[in-house]
C-alpha cells in the first residue's frame, strides 16, 4: 500500500512541473480569454430543436395520411358498386360485360389465383434450391456473384419482363406447343421469373441466420452436410422461408404489366395451360383508359378486392413473424 502512495507523490511532483509550463503557455494567450467567453456563453437554442422534432414527426404523419387516403379513395370508389351488385355476384359471376352493366369478375378472380399458384409452383422449389446453394454449397466468391445477379434480376422492371415474354416466350409456346402462345403458361413462366429474387433473397437470409453453432454441433454428431441442412437448418429457417413464399405470392398477385403483355387477357376461366386468361390487375390496366361511370367504379372495386387481398397477406406475414419469434425464443 505504501508503494502506491509513493507513486502518487511522484505523479504530483511531475504535474507541478507541467503546470508551470502550462502557466507560461497561458501567459502568452491573447485571444484565449475571448474564446473562453464564447465557449461559456453559447446557449443551446431550444426553439429550432423542437421545430425540427415536429417537422420530422410530420413526415411520419404524412406517410400515415397517404395510406389512409389510398384506402379511403380506393374503397369509396369501389365499395358502392360492390354493394349494389352484391359481393357474391361481383366476385364469382363470370359475366364481365361493362357495356351491358354486368360486372362479375369471377374469371379474373380465378385467373389471378390460378396464375399466382402456377408461378409459385415452379418458382418456389427452384428459388429455394438456389437459396440453399448460395448459403450452403457455393464457395463464397460464387455466392457473392450470385447475390449480385439475383439483385440484378430483381431490378429489371416488370414491363421489360413482359416485353421479353412477348418476344421470346410467347413465340416459343406458339411454335412448339400450339395456340396463340398468349397463355397461362407464358404468364406463369414470366411471373415465376419475377418472383424468384424475392424467394431467393429472403430464404437465403433466413438460412444464413441459423447460428453456426447449430450446424457445427450437428456435424460433430456425425450428421452429413445434407442431413444437417434437411433436419436442422431448413426447419430452423422455416418461418423465414414461409415469409419468402407469402411475400412472393403478394408480388405475383399484384403484378400487372408483365402479365398483361403475355396472357392474352380473355376474360374467361382458362381450360388449359395454353389458353389465355385475364387477371384482376390486367382488367384494371386494360380498361382504365376509357372506362367511365359504373364501369370505372367496377375497376376500382376490382382494385379494392386486390387491396384487401394484399392486406390479408400482410396480416398473415405479421402473424408468421410473431410465431417465428416465439419459436426462436424457446
Amino acid at each position, binding site marked *: 500500500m505504501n508503494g502506491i502512495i509513493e507513486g502518487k507523490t511522484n505523479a504530483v511532483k511531475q504535474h507541478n512541473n507541467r503546470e508551470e509550463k502550462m502557466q507560461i503557455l497561458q501567459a502568452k494567450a491573447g485571444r484565449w480569454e475571448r474564446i473562453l467567453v464564447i465557449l461559456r456563453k453559447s446557449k443551446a*437554442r431550444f426553439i*429550432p*430543436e423542437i421545430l*425540427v422534432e415536429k417537422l*420530422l*414527426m*410530420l*413526415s*411520419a404523419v404524412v*406517410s*400515415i395520411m*397517404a*395510406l389512409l*387516403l*389510398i384506402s379511403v*379513395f*380506393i374503397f369509396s370508389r369501389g365499395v358502392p358498386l360492390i354493394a349494389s351488385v352484391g359481393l357474391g355476384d361481383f366476385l364469382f359471376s363470370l359475366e364481365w360485360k361493362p357495356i351491358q352493366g354486368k360486372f362479375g369478375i369471377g374469371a379474373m378472380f380465378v385467373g389471378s389465383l390460378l396464375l399466382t399458384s402456377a408461378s409459385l409452383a415452379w418458382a418456389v422449389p*427452384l428459388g429455394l*434450391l*438456389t437459396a440453399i*446453394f448460395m448459403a450452403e*454449397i*457455393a464457395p463464397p466468391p460464387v455466392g457473392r456473384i*450470385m447475390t449480385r*445477379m*439475383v439483385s*440484378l*434480376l430483381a*431490378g*429489371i*422492371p*416488370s*414491363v*421489360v*419482363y*413482359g*416485353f421479353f415474354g*412477348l*418476344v*421470346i416466350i410467347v413465340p416459343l409456346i406458339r411454335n412448339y406447343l400450339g395456340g396463340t402462345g398468349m397463355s397461362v403458361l407464358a404468364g406463369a413462366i414470366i411471373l415465376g*421469373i419475377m418472383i424468384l429474387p424475392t424467394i431467393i433473397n429472403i430464404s437465403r437470409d433466413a438460412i444464413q441466420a441459423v447460428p453456426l453453432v447449430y450446424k457445427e454441433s450437428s456435424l460433430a454428431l456425425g450428421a*452429413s452436410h445434407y442431413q444437417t441442412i434437411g433436419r436442422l437448418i431448413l426447419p430452423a429457417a422455416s418461418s423465414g422461408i414461409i415469409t419468402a413464399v407469402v*411475400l412472393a405470392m*403478394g408480388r405475383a398477385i*399484384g*403484378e*400487372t*404489366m408483365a402479365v398483361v*403483355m403475355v396472357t392474352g387477357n380473355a376474360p374467361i376461366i382458362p381450360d388449359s395451360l395454353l389458353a389465355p386468361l385475364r387477371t384482376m*390487375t390486367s382488367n*384494371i*390496366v386494360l380498361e*382504365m383508359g376509357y372506362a367511365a361511370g359504373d364501369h370505372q367504379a367496377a*375497376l*376500382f372495386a376490382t*382494385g379494392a378486392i*386486390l387491396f384487401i387481398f*394484399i392486406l390479408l*397477406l*400482410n396480416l398473415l406475414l405479421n402473424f408468421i413473424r410473431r410465431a417465428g419469434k416465439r419459436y426462436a425464443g424457446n
Partner: protein
Amino acid sequence: MPGTRIGEKALTCLLYLSALIIIGILLAVVGYIVYKGLAMINLDFIMQAPRRAGKEGGISSTIVGTLYLTVLSLAIAAPLGVGTAIHLEEYAQKESYFAYLVTLTAETLAAIPSIIYGLFGFVFFVIYLKLGWSIWSGSLTLAIMVWPTITRTAQEAILSVPREYRENSLALGASKWQTIRKIVIPAAIPGIVTGMILALGRAIGETAAVLLTAGTSLGMPLSPADPARSMSVHLYMLAMEGLSMERAFGTAFLIIILLLFINYLANRSMSFLSHNGG
C-alpha cells in the same frame, strides 16, 4: 450407405443446376435485349422526338419524361423518407403506439401493388386535386411508392451508427439535433444514398402507376404540369400495339442499361461513401 452417397451426389447436381438456371435466365433476358437493342441505339434514336405515335423517330421526349418523373418523385420522397427514418430511430419511443403505426404503414405501403397506386393517383391527384395527367400527378404517386424503400434503408443505416457516437456527442454538450446532423447522418450517408438509388431504379421501371397518372402523351414535357410518357410506358405501348418492335427493343435496351448502371452505383455508393465517411 452407397445409396445415400448417390443420393447426395444427385442433390449436389440439382443444386448446381438450379443456380445455373438462375444465371441462365438473367443472361437470357439481359443478353437478348442488349443483343437486339444495341442495333437500334444511335444518337438520332436518343435525340429525336417520336413521330407517328412512336412508329418513327426517336424517343427523346420519353427520356425527358422519365427524368422529370424520377427526379421530382425522389425530391419529394427523399426528405419525407429520411425524415421518417430519423423520427423513428432517434425521436420516437420504440414501444410507442405511434412508432408501431408508422412501421405498419411503411410495411403496408411497401406491399401495395403498383396498379393500386395507379388507381389512387388517378382518382386523387389527377381527378380530385385536378392536377390532370401530368408529371406532378405521376411524381407524387411515385413518391408515395418509393417512400417505404427510402425509409427502410435509411432506418437501417441510422441504426448501424454506433450508440457511442451519440453518447459522446451529447456528452460534449451537443444538442440532439446537432448530434443527428453532424454525427449520425454523415455516418449513415452511404446507406441513405443507397436507398435513394434503389428508389430511383424503382421509379424508372415503374409502368402501371405512371400510365394511369402521367398519361401517354408523346409531346415534349416542359413543365411539371404537362402530361408525359415515360420510357417504360413507351415500351409497353410500342410492344402491345405492335407499333415498332425495333424501337421497343431500343427502349428496353436503354432502360436495362440505365438500371444496370444504377445497380452498379448502388453497390459502389456503399463502399465508396463509407471509405470517405465523414
